C-alpha cells in the first residue's frame, strides 16, 4: 500500500482507539476532578466491563446483536454498582485521604484482577460483533487528465468500527449534557468547587461521591464493552487503558472534561499512527515521559488554564 492510504488506515484505527480511550479517560477525570481520588483500579473496572460483556453475551440466547445490546446495558451498570459499593465500604471509610485511598485502590486493583483470573480464567475470548460489514474506501490518484478515484486493496473499514466511534461520541455528549445542563451536573460541579460549601448548602456530598465513582467506573466499562468485539476480553487487559487514561487526564489538565477529550484524541490518534509507522513501545515511552515532564513543569496540563 502507498503512504496515503496507509496513513488513512492508521487514522481510522487510531480513531477507534481514541474513542474508547476518551470514554475511559473521562471516567477517570470525573473521579479525579470531583473527588480528588486517584483511582488506580480504573483499568480493572474496564477489564471487568469486558469480561462481564463476554459473560452476558454468551449467556444471552438469540442472534449476536441481542447479546451485545444486553451486554452494553448490563455490564456498565453492574460495574458501576460494584464501584458504588467499593466507594461506600472502602473509600468513604478512609475519608478520601490521598495516600490511603491510593493504597486501597491498588489493593482493589489486584483483588478485581485476580478474582477475574480465578473465575474467568487466563484465556482471551472475543464477543461477536452485532454487525461487521466491510466497507471499501476510495483513494484518489493522479492519472493523465486529472484526479481519479480508485479502491486500493486492503483499504477498508468495518461498520462496527464506525459504530464504536459514533457510540462513544454520543455517550460523551450525554455526559457533557448531564454535567452542564442538569441539576445533577450542577450538584457535581458544586461539590468539585467547594466540598464544604456544598455540604453547607445541604448537598449530600457522600452520595455525590458514590454516584461519581460509579459513573466513572461505568464509563470505563462502557468503553470496554464497545472494544471487546474488536479486541478480546482478558484478565490482564486493564493495564494499558489505565496507563493511557492517566496520560490523557494529565495532559488534558486534571479535572477538565474538554481538555480530557482533546487529549484523548491526540494520544489515541498519535498512538495509532506512531504504532503503525514506528514501534508501539517507543510511542508509549515517549507518552509516559511526556506526562512526567508535563506534571513536573506544567501541572495544570497542556490544555488546562487555571492553577490547582
Amino acid at each position: 500500500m502507498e503512504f496515503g492510504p496507509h496513513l488513512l488506515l492508521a487514522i481510522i484505527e487510531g480513531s477507534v482507539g481514541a474513542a474508547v480511550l476518551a470514554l475511559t479517560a473521562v471516567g477517570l477525570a470525573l473521579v479525579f476532578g470531583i473527588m480528588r481520588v486517584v483511582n488506580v483500579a480504573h483499568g480493572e473496572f474496564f477489564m471487568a466491563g469486558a469480561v462481564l460483556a463476554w459473560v452476558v453475551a454468551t449467556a444471552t440466547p438469540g442472534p449476536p446483536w441481542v447479546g451485545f445490546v444486553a451486554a452494553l446495558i448490563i455490564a456498565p451498570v453492574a460495574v458501576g454498582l460494584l464501584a458504588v459499593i467499593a466507594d461506600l465500604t472502602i473509600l468513604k471509610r478512609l475519608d478520601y485521604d490521598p495516600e490511603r485511598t491510593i493504597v486501597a485502590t491498588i489493593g482493589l486493583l489486584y483483588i478485581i484482577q485476580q478474582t477475574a483470573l480465578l473465575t474467568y480464567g487466563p484465556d482471551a475470548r472475543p464477543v461477536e460483533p452485532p454487525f461487521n460489514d466491510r466497507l471499501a474506501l476510495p483513494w484518489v490518484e493522479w492519472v493523465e487528465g486529472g484526479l481519479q478515484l480508485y479502491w486500493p486493496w486492503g483499504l477498508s473499514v468495518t461498520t462496527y468500527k464506525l459504530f464504536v466511534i459514533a457510540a462513544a461520541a454520543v455517550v460523551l455528549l450525554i455526559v457533557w449534557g448531564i454535567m452542564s445542563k442538569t441539576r445533577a451536573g450542577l450538584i457535581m460541579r458544586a461539590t468539585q468547587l467547594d466540598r464544604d460549601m456544598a455540604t453547607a448548602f445541604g448537598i449530600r456530598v457522600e452520595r455525590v461521591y458514590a454516584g461519581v465513582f460509579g459513573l466513572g467506573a461505568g464509563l470505563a466499562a462502557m468503553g470496554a464493552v464497545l472494544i471487546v468485539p474488536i479486541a478480546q476480553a482478558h484478565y490482564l487487559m486493564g493495564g494499558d487503558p489505565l496507563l493511557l487514561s492517566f496520560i490523557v487526564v494529565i495532559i488534558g489538565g486534571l479535572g477538565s472534561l474538554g481538555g480530557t477529550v482533546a487529549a484523548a484524541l491526540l494520544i489515541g490518534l498519535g498512538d495509532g499512527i506512531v504504532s503503525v509507522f514506528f514501534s508501539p513501545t517507543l510511542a508509549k515511552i515517549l507518552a509516559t515521559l511526556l506526562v512526567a515532564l508535563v506534571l513536573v513543569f506544567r501541572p495544570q496540563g497542556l490544555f488546562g488554564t487555571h492553577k490547582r
Partner: protein
Amino acid sequence: MKVWGLHLAVLALLAVGAVILPDYHQGVVARAMVLAVFAMGYNIAFGYTGLLSLGHAMFFAAGMYGMGMAVQHGGASGALGLLAGLIAAAGLAAIVGALALRAAGVAFMIVTLMFAQAIHLSIFLFGDWTRSDEGFVLQGAARQPFGIDLTQAEPRYWAAFALFALVFLATLLLARSGFGRTLVAIRENEARAGMLGYDTFRLKWTALLISGVISGAAGACYGLFFGYVGAGFASVQYSILPLLWVLLGGAGTVIGPIIGTLFMTYLIDIASGITTAYMLIAGAALLLLALFAPQGLAGEIRRRFAGWLP
C-alpha cells in the same frame, strides 16, 4: 541500649537461621532478606521522608540491569558488576529526584509511576541486549565475587545476611541521626521544616538518592545471588511490593521492612502453591492495611507499647 539490644537480637535470630533452617526455607529467607533491603531503601523515602513513590522498581531494575549488563556484555566480574549497578541506580535516582521532587503529593506519585513505566518499556525497546521478559541467566563464573560462591545455598545465605545486616544497621544509625530526624520533620510538616531554615528540597533529594542506591544495591545483589536478570523486576508489581512490605511491617520503623517482607514472602509462597491468583493475597492485604492498620505491625507496637522504637 534497649534499641541496640532489640536490633542486634533480630540479626542474631537471622544468623541462627543459617544453622537451623532446612535447605528450602534457607533459600526463602535469603531471598526475603535481599528483598527486605529493597524495602528498607523504600522505607527511607516513604516511611521517614513521607515520599510515596509508585516507581521504586526502576531503582531496583537499574541496579539489577547495571550489574547484569556489565557482567553479560561488558565481561565484568561480579564485584565490578555490583559497582556498576550501584552507579546506575545512583545516577537514575539523582535525575529522577531532581525532576520528580518538583511535584508534590499525587503528582509526585504519578511522576514516579511514569518514569518507572518508561524504564520498564525501555528494557523491551532494547530487547536485543536485555532479552526482554525472558531475561538472561548469569553464568557461575561471574557469581563468585570476593571468592564467595553464590551458586551454593549456604554462602548465599551468609552473603544475603551480610548485605541485610549492613543496610539494617545503617538505617538504624540514619534514623537516630540528626539527618534522619530532619527527614521525619519534613514528613510531618514540610512548611514548618522549611521555615526553620532547612533546605527541604535538597534534603528530600538526598533521601531519595540514598533510597534509590539502597534499592539498586538490592536489585544488583538479587540478580547476582540468584543468577537471573529479567524485565519482570521492573514492572509495576515490583513498585507496589515494597510499598506493601513497608506498610505491613510499619512505615518509618527500622525493623518494619524485614517483618513485612518475611511475612508477605511466606504468605505469597504458600498461596502460590494453592492457586495462580496469588496476588489476590497482596491485594487483600493492601486493602486491609489501608482500612484498619495504616501504621503497620511495628507501627502499632510503637503506638501502644514502645514509643522508643526507632
